[in-house]
């Protein structure tokens, strides 16, 4: 049998890898389960805005303490009310480069939405642990130096909040 010949191993492997890579790519393009914004399926009671906000909170602050999650939701809502930012929740969330998780797609991959949905509801009900913050960032990650010119309000968990 030719196929067991030592010299053939590498070419055969190459072909197999390429074909499987192409197939996998094709599969991924065709099916994108759970990755579309319209397939949110978040188990919350009211409103598409809660879904949107819960996803962002989960992606941006999924590992943060509860008040840190409410705070991220509150920042979005403070932006909606600010003349510096778009005037809708979706406009604020999908502003280019406004949120890292939107840029890298994490917002579509989050799965644990129970606590973030509760945090989103609290934020929509008016709770704002930051009292007016418009920006937040993780000081241990590289950020634009411009952001440090804003006046800092407080730090909750791993995030610095500023106005």
């Amino acid at each position, binding site marked *: 049998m030719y196929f067991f010949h030592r010299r053939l191993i590498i070419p055969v492997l190459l072909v197999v890898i*390429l074909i499987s890579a192409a197939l996998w790519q094709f599969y991924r393009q065709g099916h994108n389960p759970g990755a579309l914004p319209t397939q949110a399926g978040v188990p919350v009671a009211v409103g598409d805005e809660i879904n949107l906000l819960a996803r962002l909170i989960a992606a941006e602050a999924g590992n943060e303490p509860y008040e840190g999650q409410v705070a991220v939701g509150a920042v979005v809502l403070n932006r909606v009310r600010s003349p510096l930012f778009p005037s809708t929740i979706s406009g604020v969330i999908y502003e280019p480069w406004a949120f890292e998780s939107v840029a890298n797609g994490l917002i579509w991959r989050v799965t644990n939405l129970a606590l973030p949905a509760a945090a989103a509801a609290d934020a929509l*009900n008016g709770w704002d*642990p930051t009292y007016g913050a418009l920006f937040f960032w993780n000081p241990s990650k590289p950020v634009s130096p411009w952001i440090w010119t804003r006046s800092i309000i*407080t730090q909750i968990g791993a995030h610095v909040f500023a106005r």
Partner: protein
Amino acid sequence: MKRRLTTILLTLALLLAVGWGLWERTNRLTLANAVEAGGQRDFYNLLSYVEQAQVSMGKSLASSSPRQQAVHLTEAWNQAAAAQLSLSQLPTPGIKPINTSKFLSQTSDYSNYLAQKLARGEEITPQEREQLVRLRDEMKRLAADLRQAESQVASKNLRWSSFYSVQMPQPLKTIARLAVPAEARPGPLDGFVNADRRLQTLPSLNYDGPFSDHLEKPRPLGLKGSEIAQAEAERRAQAFANDASGSNYRVQATRTSNGLLPTFALNLIDNRRANVTVHIDVSKQGGEIISLLNTRPVGSPTLDAAKALERARAFLEAHGFANMQPTYTVRTGNSQVITFAAKEGDVILYPDQVKVKVALDNGEITGWDATPYYMAHYDRQLPEPKLTPAEARAKISPGLKVEGVRLALIPLPGGIERLTYEVKTKLDDTYYLSYINAVTGEEEKVLQIIDVPGGQLTM
């Protein structure tokens, strides 16, 4: 034979790799074109809305009749708002044109304010006209800057999609820069940077609208007394948490927060129940409890909304909020959130709100938000109503069925408060709240009551 087979397989592998690469490239280009189209659309929308707004503002200055002025100001309001939306969705990496954004929002809001003023039959003052001229001139200059950027866009020096490509690693970048020294030519986004820098220096704009500069940093009006010490804040937070839960808490951590309402922010742990924590904000000035959030999961309900309301009211009274009127209640999950407004005599003070969240499994207070109350509350001198309730009723248009009238102080844009009659009306199957100024008889505001599942307005 074996060699030939190797050759065939290797060729096949090469062809597959090349084909795959080409396929990926086509995909990438398709996506890049879509992104480019989005960027171009937003940019040209921005440019054309800025030009249109500038023209509309000019027309309103040139027209002599208040009605025409109002029409053009309404156009300017919409065009400036559309320009702001386009700008905010434009991919401009590394620069945040927030001053341009603020300028567009403010101009839009200011045009709306003037249009509404004209609609009420009032006149534009000379100062307001001067401000409008100033804003129109700035809009003109912004249009000129954007046109300059447009020439770069048209000559393809500026590709919006290119901002999304993955950055070269730093060592490669350094080598590239050594090999090809960067020319000193204007960057593609310089026009934006310059315009934004110029708009930062605009004098402040004060008027009766939500984006007026005098509202940018509201001060809490409801806090009295001197600044308290951290130990005092911890003591008060602990007592409040114990009372809210009927349990016993200890302080885990305290930090300070310097937002619009400066606070000590505390995390407390329940001594009796595992994994129950409470977050409390205590105002630095006066040591008032501003907010409480209990994060425990709430089990299946044993209380109904009425019981929850009773519980919330008792808790409010125990903490010095005696005369509060429930105005709205909404169920979220297994909790009931009830909004209360303060009352002065029989006047409901809508700006002075406190929200209480009650867990429906055991009646524990799991949320408290008195931020609006402490931001807005002060000892007001309410005017005497000149209208009777019957006169207020008569102001409602005849097709509507009146269901109730009461006195209410309402907040209006620009930080203004007005004493009004709140008239609840019904048109077909929709409820509305009309607010008739109790002194002048003008209709100040109409609200439509939107049904939210589990939400209920309490009258």
